């Protein structure tokens, strides 16, 4: 719904722009983008969610026009520990570990073409485009196997995504991409960057912001548990006792 409406609106704007007989190029933005919602709400029935990033460009997108669109989404940093299992006397247990302090809890990239095809390595590295360009600095063991495991496991649980969804183009200038969040998504502030790439350079960029929040019962439970653990603990005990006692009265079978 939102997606369709936004697309229609953009198309109208675009047509209006074309109809006004080409205004001065300097005043036209090369890139205009927005997201379907600036708030993802984690409710009691939350099973993951997705937002739509959409926009329009001044020039044509696609291989012939030479312009490409890249959409990158970042979550708040989440220090992550990677552990390796070792076999001791036939038992598998957690052995050496290493901590990655500055890694995003969520990272997703989508593009009309893979970024390694359209941007030189240096640009990718400074703009942190693509999972291989993330600065994964480890404290502890520096073995490359830990980095590889981090990349693999984060992608497995959907918290890091590389080209999981396509950037679709309509009418040569309208683009849209989906960013999907798994149910294990962290709360916090997310940043989505839309980049316009031409001739191996980033020619325009726009940052969009998004907040992931718990709402309703889930939010109150989590916040009480964190801020008032004494009260929360006592309430948990009482609720369990009442539920058990009440249930045994209601369902008694004699």
């Amino acid at each position, binding site marked *: 719904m939102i997606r369709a409406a936004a697309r229609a609106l953009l198309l109208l704007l675009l047509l209006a722009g074309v109809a006004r007989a080409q205004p001065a190029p300097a005043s036209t933005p090369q890139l205009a983008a927005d997201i379907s919602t600036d708030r993802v709400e984690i409710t009691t029935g939350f099973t993951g969610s997705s937002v739509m990033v959409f926009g329009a460009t001044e020039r044509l997108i696609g291989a012939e026009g030479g312009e490409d669109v890249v959409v990158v989404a970042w979550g708040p940093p989440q220090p992550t520990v990677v552990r390796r299992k070792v076999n001791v006397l036939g038992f598998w247990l957690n052995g050496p570990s290493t901590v990655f302090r500055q890694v995003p809890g969520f990272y997703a990239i989508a593009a009309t073409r893979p970024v390694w095809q359209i941007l030189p390595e240096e640009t990718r590295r400074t703009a942190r485009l693509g999972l291989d360009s993330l600065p994964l600095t480890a404290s502890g063991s520096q073995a490359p196997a830990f980095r590889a495991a981090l990349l693999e496991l984060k992608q497995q649980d959907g918290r890091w995504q590389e080209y999981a969804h396509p950037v679709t183009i309509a009418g040569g200038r309208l683009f849209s991409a989906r960013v999907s969040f798994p149910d294990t998504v962290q709360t916090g502030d997310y940043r989505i960057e839309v980049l316009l790439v031409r001739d191996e350079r980033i020619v325009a960029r726009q940052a969009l912001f998004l907040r992931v929040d718990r709402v309703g019962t889930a939010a109150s439970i989590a916040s009480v548990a964190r801020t008032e653990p004494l009260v929360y603990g006592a309430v*948990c005990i009482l609720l369990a006792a009442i539920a058990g006692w009440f249930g045994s009265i209601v369902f008694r079978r004699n």
Partner: protein
Amino acid sequence: MQVYLPIAEMSVDALLLLGIGFGVGWLSGLFGVGGGFLLTPLLILIGIPAPVAVASGANQTIGASVSGLIAQWRRGNVDARMGTVLLVGGFIGSGAGVQLFALLRRAGQVDLAVAIFYVVILGTVGMLMVRESVRSILRRRRTGVAAAKAHEHTWLHGLPFKMRFRKSRLYISVIPPLLVGFGIGILSAIMGVGGGFMLVPAMIYLLGMPTSVVIGTSLFQVVFVAANVTFLQAVQVGTVDIVLTLLLLAGGVVGAQFGASMGTKLRGEETRALLGMLVLSVALGLLYDLVRTPDSLFSIGATP
């Protein structure tokens, strides 16, 4: 129907949790135990993080045992004095256990510790139960009646600080019940169980309590130690998920009633043999998990 667990920070099928609650409740009603020793491994199996499974398992144990305690109390089957002595040991033990748990969590060895505790404790208890019940079944076949165990005097009766427990018809030192309570308290904190399946044999064989007050008194200890563990886990580790607990209880209280009405049709020795085999198979399953080559050698987690 998916439901989001606010503390575990993941969504799970609510029907699956209700089903697990029902199944475990049914077994616990059938055998007269809390069922925590089945619940925590099952929760870990469906992907609930071990710390949340243990803490919420302890929370669930309160609900699963409280109605039994009320019923036993009304019938006068609770030795409150013995229960209090056990409880003092239990509180100290569960306090120490939660500290140990937090320490293990920081070291990244919670999963291993939980698994090893389960394998060792369940393996031992299961084996003893099967052996004991098979013996008494054989004895009954041979003589026609189950032989009553004579009241024996052991070195335990030579310890100081003696106290009279009228309901249990015992005059013994407070040291053995304190130690029993302490041990069960530690296990309760690390395994997320009430510990009834260990407490009951300990009371009968170690303390020599009459069976009539054993169930009620163990429930007394279980409810309060589980409450203590829940409270300490909520405050120190922050892993009690009340949504998870209530869903499990909703299935559990219904299952327990069905199980209990079926349990009255089974003979004591056969029930114990079945329970022993169940306990043993859980231990073997967990042991297999520890020794088989894992799918991935690596695991990731949030920094503690």
